[in-house]
């Protein structure tokens, strides 16, 4: 069977505007959760988020182009540019673009544009809606813009599965490269949904914290919303090796499952199925895995359930595993989460440094694994799993291993 290499990585999130700044903050456990600054907060009870700060769209796009781009597409493009540049591939070469898939996940799509137009219409009673509202709002817009920028003419679409969108998208892209349907893929996830109505909706569900995100610890009070994008270039392994590309990691497998149970409550069984599926798909033994980047939202329900699922799949090896949630510092970027967190997985693999779970106070008896509290740990890492479990009970776990 063909193997799949990751040869490009790009990211933008609250931690920084590129993958290297993102990884540096992860390694240091430096939290970017703070008071919301980009939108008015007077109607909000939850006034913290992990926003992309110091961001000037005009530094990345000219105004003519920008009119087409919701913030969610801007983030995807910025991350994709970084990833493609790192890969060193020119997709306009010969037939390469035709042999490339472009699959970008998003949980919500063009929320900022949607909110802006609704606000004009209902708030200002302005009946004129922007002519580009539709193409800005559509959830496939990020995939389309990435494809257009690099000339990717193979299979291209968005994947939508709430908080698991990025992992589902990357799993799909990985399958296509492995099966030979394509030779390359540009894939990841993007999200930009920090708007007043979205935060009000999260508040109403009572699953968001008003202080900060403290996954797996007793004082956790819920999730904190984040935003950003992560995009990767996947490439058939031998092709990458033959051209002497830097292989960041091997994308070795993916496991997916659906709880088909509750629309919000997580299921230990469903999560365990996805974890076990990823191991089997990647032909990894439980003992080969040294680190799990957890879904770790910091909600009362997720963290114990996820811990039990890991214990169920890994048995005694669960105690030897490092399990951390970088959502503690970059928040929950929903449809971009798995992609931003793959930066942590790749960093851990390449540098042998496990990024910590920040903001950790006291252990919760319900969560009994090694969560690498507050301080990064040096440890050789051979393989990593990265978990995403979405509302709706949709689970996607990806497995990466050190390049050989």
């Amino acid at each position: 069977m063909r193997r799949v290499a990751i040869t490009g990585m790009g990211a933008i999130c609250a931690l920084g505007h590129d993958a290297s700044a993102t990884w540096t903050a992860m390694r240091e456990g430096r939290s970017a959760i703070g008071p919301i600054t980009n939108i008015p907060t007077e109607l909000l009870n939850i006034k913290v988020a992990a926003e992309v700060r110091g961001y000037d769209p005009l530094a990345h796009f000219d105004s003519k182009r920008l009119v087409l781009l919701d913030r969610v597409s801007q983030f995807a493009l910025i991350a994709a540019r970084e990833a493609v540049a790192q890969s060193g591939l020119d997709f306009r070469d010969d037939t390469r673009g035709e042999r490339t898939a472009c699959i970008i996940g998003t949980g919500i799509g063009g929320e900022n544009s949607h909110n802006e137009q609704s606000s004009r219409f209902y708030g200002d009673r302005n009946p004129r809606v922007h002519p580009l509202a539709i193409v800005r709002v559509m959830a496939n817009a990020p995939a389309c813009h990435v494809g257009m920028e690099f000339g990717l003419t193979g299979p291209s679409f968005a994947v939508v599965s709430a908080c698991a969108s990025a992992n589902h998208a990357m799993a799909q892209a990985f399958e296509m490269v492995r099966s030979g349907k394509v030779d390359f893929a540009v894939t990841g996830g993007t999200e930009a949904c920090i708007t007043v109505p979205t935060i009000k909706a999260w508040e109403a569900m009572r699953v968001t914290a008003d202080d900060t995100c403290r996954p797996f610890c007793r004082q956790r009070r819920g999730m904190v919303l984040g935003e950003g994008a992560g995009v990767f270039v996947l490439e058939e392994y031998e092709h990458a090796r033959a051209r002497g590309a830097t292989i960041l990691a091997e994308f070795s497998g993916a496991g997916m499952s659906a709880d088909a149970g509750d629309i919000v409550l997580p299921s230990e069984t469903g999560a365990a199925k996805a974890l076990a599926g990823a191991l089997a798909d990647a032909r990894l033994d439980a003992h080969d895995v040294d680190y799990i980047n957890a879904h770790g939202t910091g909600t009362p329900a997720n963290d114990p359930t996820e811990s039990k699922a890991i214990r169920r799949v890994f048995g005694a090896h669960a105690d030897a595993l490092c399990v951390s949630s970088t959502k503690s510092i970059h928040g929950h970027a929903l449809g971009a989460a798995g992609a931003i967190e793959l930066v942590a997985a790749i960093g851990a693999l390449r540098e042998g440094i496990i990024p910590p779970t920040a903001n950790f106070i006291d252990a919760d008896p319900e969560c009994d694994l090694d969560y690498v509290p507050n301080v990064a740990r040096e440890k050789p890492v051979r393989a990593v799993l990265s978990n995403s479990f979405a509302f709706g009970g949709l689970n996607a776990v990806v497995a990466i291993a050190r390049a050989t």
Partner: protein
Amino acid sequence: MSSVQETIFAIISKEAGVDLGKISLDSTLKELEIQSLDAVQIIFEIEDHYKITLPDRDPNFDTESVKGLVEAVEKLVAEKQSAAPASA
């Protein structure tokens, strides 16, 4: 039965599909087998009905009795009414 109590019982019954006769002041949402998603909908309907905001944090949906909820709402409604003349 106070009118707040009556309204809250009706909302719980409707939102969670619980028989009205089963609800008492001493029941907890857990005993009534009310799921978390139903619980947040109950809170939303109560808030929307009275135009009040219940405290966000640590609502103890599962363990707190209906009585606690009724008292919290009565207090907020009373506060709102005493503030009303000034703002009306």
